């Protein structure tokens, strides 16, 4: 029966090419626009570390004084150096890393390459195992190296490519900011998006190429990059001076393997705050937060408002296209009242008429879906050529491909329901008579 309906549908669609083309075009435009924006939204609000992110937490404490500078009920978004080191050395989590962003000048041995700046991350040892960073060559450093302020460095594949032509560079030296470092590991181009662990250096596309032990970087006064917020007489630092003790400028991440561990850690943060208050460092009552990766991203509202607005706009557009298609299908089906009346009079049930018309609208949806997919690919290509920092991420993945078709088919079937139902209400005798 389906084959017969398909045949009827094809014939009917061929009969009025302009109307068919209009319907296909409307669906394709609506689907194309919504898929483009939905894909961007999907990519930007994705999980940066799938499978791992639910165990990673970002502790926040409130070390501010009562002066009201840097106001707000939420604790600051970063830590002071003192608190960062205290929490790090307390070792109450399964893993913990204290870090901040930076930028360093690379001075290649090969004099044919001019010195250049790259983004850097100054962090403690657990960074690599905690975030599941895979090494191509070598390994990361350990807590002893942290402590010894070792001149060790981990670089990415792309920097290795640029400096050593992609060879295993472990054991070689790297000159940065007039200091000699030893390369101990090379990682793949690891760039979780959004750049969840430090949103101050940009939410997307903030990948670093060089990783230096935090204490070493501070010791050498390597350039700090990111934001620093201060209260009281604190200042954000200038030149080679780091931000004052009354400034927050470091990020601290912990891994807590079970919910019970997370609860216990939160209690630890409250205790720590109380203890600091007793010592006179903290002024406020304990004010702590412990968000995991996805909660942190939601709280920070990393997805740009423009992207949400575009998605809303595209769905509004899809709705108009659908209403349009419903109207056109209604016109098309009602015009065939005579033909349908004849089929009814010859014994076709309302059900089979209904199915026949739905097959026809499904066919329109399928063609519209293919058109929409092409338009979405074009739309994403256009977005990739825009100047935003997230532009490069706009790519279609297989899941979104499936959703495109489901959406197109579902939308056109939905659009076909009302007209098909209306057309089936035709009384066979009446239509025959008027003809």
């Amino acid at each position, binding site marked *: 029966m389906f084959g017969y309906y398909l045949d009827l549908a094809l014939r009917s669609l061929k009969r009025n090419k302009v*109307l068919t083309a209009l319907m296909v075009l*409307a669906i394709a435009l609506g689907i194309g626009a919504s898929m483009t924006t939905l894909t961007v939204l999907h990519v930007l609000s994705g999980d940066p570390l799938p499978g791992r992110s639910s165990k990673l937490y970002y502790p926040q404490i409130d070390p501010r004084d009562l002066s009201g500078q840097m106001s707000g009920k939420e604790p600051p978004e970063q830590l002071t150096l003192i608190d960062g080191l205290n929490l790090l050395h307390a070792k109450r989590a399964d893993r913990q890393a204290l870090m901040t962003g930076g930028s360093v000048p690379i001075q290649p041995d090969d004099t044919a390459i001019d010195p250049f700046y790259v983004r850097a991350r100054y962090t403690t040892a657990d960074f690599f195992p905690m975030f599941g960073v895979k090494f191509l060559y070598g390994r990361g450093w350990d807590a002893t190296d942290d402590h010894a302020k070792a001149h060790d460095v981990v670089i990415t594949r792309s920097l290795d490519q640029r400096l050593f032509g992609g060879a295993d560079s472990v054991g070689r030296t790297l000159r940065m900011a007039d200091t000699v470092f030893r390369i101990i590991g090379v990682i793949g181009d690891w760039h979780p998006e959004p750049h969840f662990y430090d949103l101050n250096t940009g939410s997307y596309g903030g990948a670093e190429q060089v990783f230096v032990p935090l204490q070493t970087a501070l010791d050498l006064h390597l350039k700090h990059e990111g934001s620093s917020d201060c209260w009281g007489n*604190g200042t954000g630092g200038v030149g080679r001076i780091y931000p004052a003790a009354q400034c927050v400028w470091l990020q601290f991440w912990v891994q807590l393997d079970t919910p019970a561990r997370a609860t216990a850690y939160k209690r630890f943060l409250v205790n720590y705050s109380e203890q600091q208050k007793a010592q006179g460092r903290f002024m406020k009552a304990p004010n702590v937060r412990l968000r995991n990766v996805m909660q942190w991203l939601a709280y920070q509202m990393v997805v740009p408002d423009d992207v949400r607005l575009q998605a809303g706009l595209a769905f509004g557009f899809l709705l108009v296209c659908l209403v349009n298609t419903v109207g056109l299908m*209604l*016109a098309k089906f*009602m015009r065939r009242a005579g033909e349908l009346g004849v089929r009814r009079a010859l014994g076709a049930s309302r059900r089979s008429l209904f199915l026949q018309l739905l097959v026809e609208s499904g066919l329109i949806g399928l063609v519209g879906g293919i058109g929409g997919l092409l338009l979405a690919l074009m739309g994403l290509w256009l977005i990739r050529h825009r100047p935003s920092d997230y532009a490069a991420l706009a790519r279609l993945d297989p899941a979104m491909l499936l959703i495109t078709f489901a959406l197109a088919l579902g939308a056109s079937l939905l659009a076909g329901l009302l007209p098909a139902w209306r057309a089936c209400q035709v009384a066979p005798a009446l239509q025959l008579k008027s003809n």
Partner: protein
Amino acid sequence: MPIRPILSSLRRHKVAVWLLVLEIALTCAIICNAIFMIGNRLHRMHMPSGVDEHALVQIKLAAIAPIPDIYAQAREDLAVLRGVPGAQAVALTNQIPFQTSSSNVSIRTSPSQAHTILSASSYFGEDLPQTMGMRVVAGRDLRPDEFVDAGIVVKDLATGETKGLPAVLLVTQALAQRLWPGQNPLGKLVYVTPTLGLRVVGVLAHLARANPYNDAVAQYSVIMPLFMGAGRDQSYIIRTRPQDRERVLKAAVAALKKANPERVVIEQRTFDQVRQKYFANDRAMAGILVGVIVALLIVTALGIVGLASFWVGQRRRSIGIRRAVGATRGDILRYFLTENFLLASIGIALGMVLAYGINLFLMTRYELPRLPAIYFPVGAIALWAIGQLAVLGPALRAAAVPPVVATRSV
């Protein structure tokens, strides 16, 4: 044109009529809001910077090896730049308007206030008003003897020393109005930390924040007499004739590299490029919104063409009868145009309510301002025009139906 026959005829196609009305209403609601958002973006893109944009170039350098004395290096660089042919004035600043990353201070007007009032963008550097072409509308510019090296200020604040701290500052008109409404700001004190009060000695007409994220506070800026050292975050600004910009930029970069070759140029551009880059997303968004409006109008127009053609086809016989009993072609044409006008009007009326609702949602969700009433007639006229244009084709075809159709049995 009698409207009643049109209404009674429409009543026989309720579903199709309502679909058309719904489509027009949705389109109207979306384009009213979209036009409004385009207006907002355009307005934002033309935000005044307070500086003489077409006359300025910016250079940023980063040292490879640590510089022993960043303040001496900065003074040397400035002297080198003054020697560049075509350079009318030069300055070193920690930030410029529209550069995204920014330095800000929280402000109180008295040390006893429990909370800071607001945060203002803080500019540091000698000769900024003169070099960048800012207009001082009251008081005076900062004097060279009032400037202090930034490193001294950082150290003094940390240790509680006070003798090296700066004592005066410049504020923008907008900031002065916000802090002391209706009063003369000259001589008033601004506290940037609980202990450091600076006296206002001059008022600037405009100076946008380095990152004017919100239009309402975009002009809250101050200039403090801090001299910055040479560093990656600082910018050298050169004022020149607009036609000399490219040449001066090239010469200046070469001169700076020659003065200290151990440096990488990380930014060299005209101020026009700075503005261009900062508002690139707004421009793109405005473009997308225009695209959506055009696409919506096209889709809606095609929908009207499709439905109207269908109606004309269905009513051939009755049109023929009307022609046979004396209706002119003009009457038939007018009939369809009036019918469309009626439908569009109902759709537009519904659309206005919907537009208002969408705006309310956007206001709470994205902190968008209220939709001004002026955007309603704009959307309405656009839809009426599109509707009349779209229905013209089918209506002309209807008018061309000969009276003889009435005598045929289809």
